[in-house]
């Protein structure tokens, strides 16, 4: 009888410790803005960041990945981009917007996009180089002497990065794209930019932004975006013809 009670006690104790493993556990919070105050750094640090963006824009090949969360009301929508860039005029991108997927491919003056199971011709861009747009905005911020703080180092992709944060005033960071025909009513407020500069290869490895835009009828929309650069000057990042495009064009010839 005694033996049974001991066995039962052990069994119950074991159950009490094992069962919680089956209950939903602590999950890490995601997409939380950093609460770090950061350490102010001299304005000359902008030069380091600018150099890292220019180094990137001079790379022959690189990969880029962007993930964005757009928050409007209680529900979120998202979009993401993944692709390779071979400046000045060779690139392929995949876009995920909600439940929709499209692709883009360009070499020289020939450009195609993939829609509803088929590649279609589209307008080519004269020079594709995302890094260049970062260099431009960093240069503008440096000229203005925008305050910069350094946060604790972080690991991005495959190396440790120095992390800098700046709040860019709306007038530096705002552009009106030419695909909006007339004056825009909506505006974007001050934007929080966080730059990640590689400690060993000195490339600009990641840029994260948190911003709020005001839109007529809709109200405000928060956008949290991370853009990561990787495989700089690596053969992996070389853009090649999509196989299904080759196939489609071959068939079209027959």
């Amino acid at each position, binding site marked *: 009888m005694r033996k049974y009670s001991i066995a039962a006690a052990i069994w119950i104790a074991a159950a009490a410790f094992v069962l919680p493993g089956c209950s939903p556990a602590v999950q890490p919070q995601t997409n939380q803005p950093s609460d770090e105050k950061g350490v102010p750094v001299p304005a000359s640090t902008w030069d380091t960041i600018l150099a890292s963006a220019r180094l990137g824009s001079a790379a022959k090949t690189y990969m880029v990945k962007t993930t964005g969360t757009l928050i409007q009301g209680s529900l979120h929508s998202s979009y993401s981009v993944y692709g390779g860039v071979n400046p000045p005029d060779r690139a392929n991108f995949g876009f995920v917007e909600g439940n929709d997927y499209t692709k883009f491919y360009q070499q020289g003056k020939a450009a195609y996009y993939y829609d509803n199971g088929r590649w279609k011709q589209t307008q080519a861009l004269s020079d594709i180089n995302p890094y260049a747009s970062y260099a431009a905005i960093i240069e503008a911020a440096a000229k203005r002497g925008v305050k910069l703080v350094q946060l604790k180092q972080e690991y991005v992709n495959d190396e440790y990065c120095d992390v800098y944060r700046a709040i860019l005033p709306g007038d530096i960071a705002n552009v009106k794209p030419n695909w909006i025909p007339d004056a825009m009513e909506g505006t974007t407020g001050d934007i929080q930019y966080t730059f990640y500069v590689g400690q060993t290869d000195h490339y600009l490895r990641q840029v994260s932004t948190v911003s709020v835009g005001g839109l007529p009828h*809709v109200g405000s929309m928060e956008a949290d975006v991370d853009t990561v650069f990787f495989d700089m000057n690596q053969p992996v990042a070389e853009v090649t013809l999509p196989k299904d495009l080759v196939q489609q064009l071959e068939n079209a010839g027959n």
Partner: protein
Amino acid sequence: MTKKQIWTWLLFLVWAVFVNACNVWIIRPLVADFALLGVVAIVALAILWIISVPAKYRRVWIGFTIFSLLVGDGLGEIATKPWLPKVALSLVTILGLTIIGWAFTRFKYRYFLGSALVLLILNWLLPLDEWAFLTHFQVAYRARLPMQNSDLTALPLQVIHTSHGTAVVTLENIQETDKQIQNDAQAAGDTPDSLENLLRNAQHRYAFVELVQSGGHFHLDSLPTDSLSAVDPMAFTASFFPFIRGYWMVDNGQVVQYMAPAQSPTVLVDLVHNSGYLPSLLTAVGESTERQETQDWQTLLTQLKVPASNDALHIEQGKLKGMYDGQPVSIPVHAYSVIATGSFTAPGAHEVLLQGVNDLEVVSLDTRRVVTDYHGDTLHPLPSDVVTGPIDNSGRDVIFVNSSPAIILQAEASGQWRQLYQATNDSLRFETSVRFAGDAVPEIITDDPSYIRNSPVRYLTSYTYRDGQLVRNWRVFRTNLVNVNAVQFAPGGSQYIVASNYGTGELFVLKRHRWPVVPAASVLLGITIIAGLWLRLRAGRRARHA
């Protein structure tokens, strides 16, 4: 049937239902709220209960209890499936478990089968997982509308007030047969894109429906076209805005919404090419999508000859416009959208809360000027998820801002806004504030994670604000509720909670009741255990005396 048989049947049937109720009302909440401590409590409770069952009946009674719980859990799981798998799986579950139950207990299988049938009927009336509502609410109405997860994450809900009364508008996936699609396709041809649009969106088209109350009962109706002027199209596109947009068309006199990518590949490529300017480009994408949607909606209203009304308060060209007290309003503001009307800075004041870029503005309709504004921090921008309502009997409304962590703000005419409360965790979300019949102070309805576990699983919870703290009134252990609205369908009538379920097309209308469901169930369970222990003790004494 003898009297004894009737009693036995009753005992089995009532116990089968009771243990399932205890499971939903006591056991699951213990784990959800107290994590490890809850599991320890359940183990202790189970041991106590097992000890309380007289040895003679132990095999049958424990076997039957486990059987009831498994059947209840299984049927609850099956309840959300389409009818054919539902019938098949229910049969397999009930027969399979009955056989296993019989094999373990060697007891008359008819009690097992009978109890399973009772659970089946109850589960059909209200799925077991929804019993969680019953602790504090009556489920006045529930519906499962056809909806595809790839199109919408949850049913969008908008409360409208029209000459027909108050209604809640939502969307319902149109169930189209191949033949109907063929017929519609034959008729599509009024624009170059109409045939392609129709075929690409077949099975993904949604009709506007409204939830109304008539004669004390709720039902869904197709939305009358003249109510469209009260509908805000943005409420039905918010979950996929701005990269996917809503399109609207009239099909057989019915307004139909479907979704498609809003931007051309040229725009998408520009977003990568100029990604340094992405934040402002995303605002541009938003504006471009909003322009297309607003224009299409206006065209639709014109086509249906629905008089567009400009009476509701809205923002137009940097001014708050609309009608108030029979007078046109035109007040210059910085904001982009109207959040709510209420009395924010003083009791009885007629004010409007507006939101701009990381900014909240309170405008007085009495003095026709901006009373005060509040700027958010750039590191933690103000989200657009803002609700308002009273939290006490002062006659003033407060502003619930669902940032992470969420805060409660009180606007002051002096310009110094007071932060009344800051959530202790990042997951708390304020849904609404409501005064149910019999409430001394308004209840703050939230979706809130558990006490001691920092998990983002959230449950519908009511709080009262007292001395800078939120004091919990009740919690319903039902998660995944979104678009929670407090709705009064008739003037002076009861307050209802209308909410949709994330990930499915479920819609719930809840009415608060005040029966002590959980205490009653706990007391009953306690009595059962004590009675069992007492029986065992008495039997033990007798055996020793004999």
